[in-house]
């Protein structure tokens, strides 16, 4: 079982690392984080926050957009692409279970994301360390950013598999993935903000908003990271608004975990029902 999962994972890593879009995304991560780290010292001084903390706070905003994009780019092809190419028939004619197939894909793609994050953010972390720009606490912040970004990536990978298995055609899966990215990463936040601004009773802000935020892995990620940095007011977005949370911030992480488990389970169910 392990051999088959690792076989699939290895092949996906190869394909993922040869994907120019993934490379481009990793380069963007690196460029942004480097420039933020190099240019970000002036405002930090006035606010009295660690320079690295500012960098990490800005980078988590970057992660929210880029990491789901990388994950969906990797995942949308996972099932639909194999159906279109006819290779799913080949794979499923081998003694491998559909669950093993999907977990292999997830493992390989997750490794690609971790490598992209490590490459993209690692450069900056090393640079900040070398120039003495960050304290030990700030390094922990950085590690937290990379780890939670990977978790966010896994959530969107799982979502991508659901879309890919439900769509069954590469082009449909690609369109759905773009749509879901816009919806969950851009529009969701805006919609919550819109409702919040327009309501007067305060019911939404107190009762619904905190849960609406953690229901979406992207917002849950932002909430957790900014909260952990104590920088909610530093960077805008919905996460900054939910101040009096009815739960500890770690619940946001738990919620991402639950999202991953549910989405992966749904993807397995869908893949089991496919006639290749």
């Amino acid at each position, binding site marked *: 079982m392990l051999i088959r999962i690792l076989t699939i994972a290895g*092949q996906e890593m190869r*394909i993922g690392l040869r994907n120019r879009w993934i490379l481009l995304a990793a380069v963007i991560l690196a460029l942004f984080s480097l420039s933020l780290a190099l240019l970000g010292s002036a405002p930090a001084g006035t606010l009295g926050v660690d320079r690295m903390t500012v960098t990490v706070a800005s980078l988590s905003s970057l992660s929210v957009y880029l990491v789901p994009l990388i994950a969906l780019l990797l995942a949308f092809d996972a099932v639909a692409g194999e159906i279109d*190419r006819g290779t799913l028939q080949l794979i499923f004619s*081998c003694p*491998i279970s559909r669950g093993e197939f999907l977990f292999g894909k997830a493992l390989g793609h997750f490794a690609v994301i971790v490598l992209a994050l490590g490459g993209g953010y690692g450069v900056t972390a090393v640079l900040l360390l070398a120039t003495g720009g960050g304290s030990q606490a700030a390094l922990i912040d950085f590690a937290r950013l990379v780890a939670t970004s990977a978790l966010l990536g896994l959530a969107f990978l799982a979502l991508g598999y659901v879309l890919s298995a439900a769509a069954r055609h590469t082009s449909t899966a690609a369109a759905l993935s773009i749509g879901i990215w816009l919806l969950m990463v851009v529009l969701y936040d805006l919609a919550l903000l819109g409702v919040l601004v327009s309501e007067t009773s305060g019911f939404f802000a107190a009762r619904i908003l905190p849960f609406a935020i953690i229901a979406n892995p992207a917002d849950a990620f932002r909430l957790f990271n900014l909260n952990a940095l104590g920088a909610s007011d530093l960077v805008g977005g919905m996460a900054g608004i939910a101040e009096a949370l009815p739960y500890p911030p770690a619940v946001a992480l738990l919620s991402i975990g639950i999202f991953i488990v549910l989405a992966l389970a749904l993807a397995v169910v869908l893949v089991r029902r496919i006639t*290749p």
Partner: protein
Amino acid sequence: MTQRALELAEVTKIFDRRAAVDGVSFQLAAGERVALLGHNGAGKTTLFKMILGFLKPDHGSVSVLGAAPGSNAARRAIAYLPEAVAFHNALTGEEVLRFYARLKGEDPAKSAALLEDVGLGAAARRRVGAYSKGMRQRLGLAQALISPASLVLLDEPTSGLDPISRQNFYDLVEKVAARGATVLLSSHALTEVEARTDRILILSAGKLVADNTLARLRADAQLPIRLRVQGNDGAAGEIAARLGGTQVNGRSVELFCDPADKVARLAAIAELGPLVADIDVTLPSLDDVYRHFSGDEGAEG
């Protein structure tokens, strides 16, 4: 009793209230090379998918070496080449083959020799994206042959291959059959599988209309032999009148006869003596035999 490599009993598959495969029964013994022929839409691919367990038959049963289709035992026994397969462009031929070797629990190191066998030795390290259609097909074939399967299913394996590669392909099939594997391959043309298979199955509009050796099929079809008699100047009319054939142009007369009457018919022609300039005897071609069984279903309905 030796175990059947494959056994289908009254297998029916219905799509949108139309039977794509309709009451098909046959058995394959170990080491047999069998061709499955049929027009476009006859149900060949559907049949393969049921043998693989991708589709469940609506009626009837399939058993692969005594195991249920799609079970791990059945999948371990089967090697399969789908009709249209395109490997990921970013991978090299060698990477693709090593991948399937591992999935099937084989030693990936075997892939180098197999790539040589299918004539891809020089292209092993090149990306599949840069392969020609025939090279991709050969890679697909290599993938199917990497494990010592006891049942090899090949769906239109020679489509896109040039005549030499086709020859090499059938040589490979022979090698595989020689080590005891049963080979079931689908094709559109009887001419192609002629000398290369032990038995022929013909599927027409989902029904199995023939299951026999080529020699028996030829005999059963009882197709007429065509005789074309070329007359000397101006004799065609008289020849047609005396033999009862049809005049096809100024000089020739065409007539058909049963294989059994051939000699008598030729004797009658010989009796015409100086009227006759030449005789052509045309035996029914393989395509004629195929058309006889397959009917004129031709295209999908």
